[in-house]
């Protein structure tokens, strides 16, 4: 589950990680009130107005702006809230901004120069361990740093039975070229950050930039936090942070009925049991000259009700020109699935206006084909995988 910057920062702060402070506002008036309050609490003169959406590169799209007085706070907030923010990570249409974070200005002048670092905590899949990845090149696209200057990226792998060791935290601070007060602050920062990661059951923390202020404080200026969905049962308070407005509405609806659905741009809908077979089916659609409109794993029980729900969800996408159902019946019998499809089709009356190709293989596949073929419905049946692809191709041409 992805979180907004302000939510991620709340979690970090609760574990003692220093953050750039801010207050969420839903309209320009709230933004002005937030700015006043922030000035009273932190003494900041300027404010940074940051759009809160689930996508990176917000600055590039005009979603992060500096306000030097309250009038500018109001104007900028007015402009950003409600806009469709387009960033390198959003679709072409962008994402609607529902709220902004009014944050303190932390780039104030002082005794030393400010500097920006990159830091993330994530799973090293190959090793089965968490690691801290960090770089002196903060504020930049880390993929670009990895490509151009890979020697500027460092990692600390964490032993699961011991946790982050103090010497590792010191090594991070040394590698980032820090000394004196900033060094001590960084050791504290890394230690608290790792503890926050572990205790929140996160699957990704990306702090870019981590800032050394002109008075040698170390803080998270941004926070991308992804939590492990499988562990949310242990964190009811975090589970409530889910912002459904940031997710595809069809995907949300599918999830509510236990279907695993991902919306795609193509013209052939598909309904498959099993994630691997679903991906393979999408690939086959492409090779047959179509484009998959979705990923949909119906799981192990493909009864009439579930099939009907899946059909309705697929058909919400107006681009769908055909639907391919690909079920490999194992424990679930193909004849039952076939009956489910026939019943769902009949229940839906005129709702289905596109050709449907059904490929059922496995337990009682022949019987299933008979049920489909004798149903009198506009449904084409297949048993072989290739046969299904050929039928998709014929329907599209």
């Amino acid at each position, binding site marked *: 589950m992805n979180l907004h910057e302000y939510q991620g920062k709340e979690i970090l702060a609760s574990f003692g990680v220093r953050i750039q402070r801010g207050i969420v506002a839903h309209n320009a008036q709230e933004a002005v009130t937030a700015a006043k309050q922030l000035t009273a609490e932190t003494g900041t003169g300027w404010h940074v107005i940051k759009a809160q959406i689930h996508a990176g590169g917000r600055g590039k799209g005009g979603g992060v702006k500096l306000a030097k007085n309250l009038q500018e706070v109001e104007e900028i907030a007015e402009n950003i809230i409600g806009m469709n923010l387009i960033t390198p990570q959003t679709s072409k249409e962008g994402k609607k901004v529902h709220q902004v974070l009014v944050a303190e200005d932390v780039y104030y002048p002082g005794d030393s120069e400010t500097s920006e670092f990159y830091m993330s905590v994530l799973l090293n899949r190959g090793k089965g361990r968490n690691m801290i990845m960090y770089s002196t090149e903060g504020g930049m696209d880390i993929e670009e740093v990895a490509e151009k200057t890979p020697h500027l990226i460092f990692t600390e792998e964490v032993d699961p039975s011991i946790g982050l060791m103090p010497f590792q935290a010191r090594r991070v601070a040394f590698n980032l070229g820090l000394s004196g007060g900033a060094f001590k602050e960084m050791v504290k920062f890394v230690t608290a950050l790792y503890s926050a990661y572990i205790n929140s059951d996160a699957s990704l923390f990306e702090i870019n930039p981590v800032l050394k202020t002109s008075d040698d404080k170390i803080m998270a200026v941004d926070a991308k936090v992804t939590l492990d969905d499988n*562990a949310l049962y242990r964190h009811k308070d975090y589970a409530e942070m889910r912002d459904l407005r940031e997710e595809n509405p069809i995907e949300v609806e599918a999830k509510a009925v236990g279907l695993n659905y*991902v919306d795609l741009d193509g013209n052939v809908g598909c309904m498959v049991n099993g994630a691997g077979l679903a991906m*393979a089916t*999408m690939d086959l659609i492409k090779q047959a000259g179509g484009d998959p409109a979705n990923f949909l794993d119906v799981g192990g029980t493909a009864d009439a009700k579930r099939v009907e729900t899946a059909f309705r969800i697929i058909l919400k996408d107006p681009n769908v020109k055909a639907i391919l159902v690909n079920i490999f019946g194992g424990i679930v019998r193909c004849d039952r699935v076939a009956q489910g499809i026939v019943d769902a089709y009949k229940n839906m009356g005129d709702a289905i206006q596109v050709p449907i190709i059904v490929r059922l293989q496995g337990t009682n596949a022949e019987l299933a084909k008979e049920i489909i073929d004798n149903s009198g419905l506009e449904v084409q049946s297949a048993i072989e995988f290739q046969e299904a692809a050929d039928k998709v191709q014929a329907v599209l041409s």
Partner: protein
Amino acid sequence: MSVLVNKDSKIIVQGFTGSEGTFHAEQMIEYGTNVVGGVTPGKGGQEHLGKPVFNTVKEAVDNVGADTSIIFVPPAFAADAIMEAADAGIKVIITITEGIPVADMIKAFDYIKDKNCRLIGPNCPGVITPGEAKVGIMPGFVFKSGGVGIVSKSGTLTYEAADQVVRQGLGITTAIGIGGDPIIGTTTKEAVELLMNDDDTECIVMIGEIGGQLEADAANWVKANGNKKPVVGFIAGETAPKGRTMGHAGAIVGGADDTAEAKKRIMRECGIHVVDSPAEIGKKVAEVLG
């Protein structure tokens, strides 16, 4: 010959009396698998499906000589079940459970590292040696005995591949579902290595998907090992968009090297017979076996 499980394996079911455990244990017993009992804490001493129930894995090992375990325990308790099996001396631990928190798996993975056991999964369909032992949730009738080994991250795609192989008049030594999670006990490379060292396996089918480095690692190993047996490969997810999880928690395209194209390129460079269409796996196997 076969790998991991055979007719002599002494198998217990952890989460034996739960609905999933009961259903699949019944299917396994019906297939002829040597299920010697099960474990459900608090129900020790009872009998279930005609087999003894134990409170702990250790008791099952001591009383009925269990050496293999299949886990159907719910996600919140599954990592603990894996550690308990390893601690009790179980040699092959097959974990079907889907949705185990990553943090739990990091701990379990670390704990079993120094134990004398092999973990398969989690989030996998299990392992089958046709005609001998079905230790998983796959439909047994699809798999016929023969000389082709299968390694796959996915359940239904494994059945699909097995079905295609069987339709070519061939059969399977052992099919290993390694699982689709970010952390799994046995990698593609390790599973391929087991089959490469199995005398009866003449050809290996390796099915992967987007995300991670497992298939590339396996391909490089096959090449370094001298391509001793033909390997047929397929990677699902050519059409998957970047950054989205496709059902399996591990199926997410991150960098440039874990796309379907990149994986297939590396596999081809390593001498693996890659098919672009999932419908051609069986045909390709028949072709390379001549």
